[in-house]
């Protein structure tokens, strides 16, 4: 299955069905990050219950240095 993450296509392994599993596959589960799924911003507790499917658009953002 292919999804668009941060503007680029990403091939996701078979068996990945929700955001939480995708984050684990990317080894980002320990990071402070925020996910926007098809323009809906998700709180962390929603990651597990949010299903992903072919062609979904995801933004994965985090805090970086700034003034």
């Amino acid at each position: 299955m292919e999804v668009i993450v941060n503007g680029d296509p990403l091939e996701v392994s078979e068996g990945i069905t929700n955001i939480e599993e995708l984050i684990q596959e990317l080894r980002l589960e320990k990071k402070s990050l925020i996910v926007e799924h098809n323009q809906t911003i998700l709180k962390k507790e929603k990651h597990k219950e949010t299903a992903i499917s072919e062609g979904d658009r995801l933004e994965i953002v985090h805090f970086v240095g700034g003034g």
Partner: protein
Amino acid sequence: MLKVGKATFNSRLFLGTGKYPNYDIQKQAVDVSETEVLTFSVRRMNIFDSDQPNFLEKIDLQKYRFLPNTAGAKNAEEAVRIAKLADASGLCDMVKVEVIGCDKTLLPDPVETLKATETLLAEGFTVLPYTSDDVVLARKLEELGAHAIMPGASPIGSGQGIINPLNLQFIIEQANVPVIVDAGIGSPKDAAYAMELGADGVLLNTAVSGANDPVKMAEAMKLAVEAGRLGFEAGRIAKKEYAVASSPKEGISIGE
């Protein structure tokens, strides 16, 4: 004690987290500054490099209140989206509205800043808008319900210090919410001056992160903000046109 929305702070120095030489120096600078508020930006993550370090991993998250900015937003809609992204982290409840309207000067777009502030206030955010040093704009932001006003001292990152103390003073005198002077601070002198003018706090970044010795500069800024505040509270003497001797005139013939 500084009160912004529901939060109270002992320190009146807000510190940015951009452009430090490395995370260790940054951590030391943040520690020595004794700041309680750190600003951050929200950006896309490099999802292919999970080992990439982040400053948040270096600090005790409980010790600081995070003030994410909406830097990168070109209009109110983008600023609101960035604020909501930051909010979804669960790490912050305040936001610094920053909508840049001019790429060359990085001066804020006043109309979009007002719109974003209004929307985010309606959504329940604690909103601190970054504005130019426009007195009327500051008042309008306060009327909307902004929890603090953050007028720039001079253009972001320029280190020019306070180029229009008169406007800042007007804003400070009229405001009924905290005024945090933000952007353009170059030296401890500038930070102290802002506080002497009656500002409730100072937000700075490059003045510390870009200093030859960021840790030492962080301490200098801490002391400058404290000194400026004490000076403001103590009340400076009036300026006079001519000299006024501070020694008594009586007994002046002692040397004859």
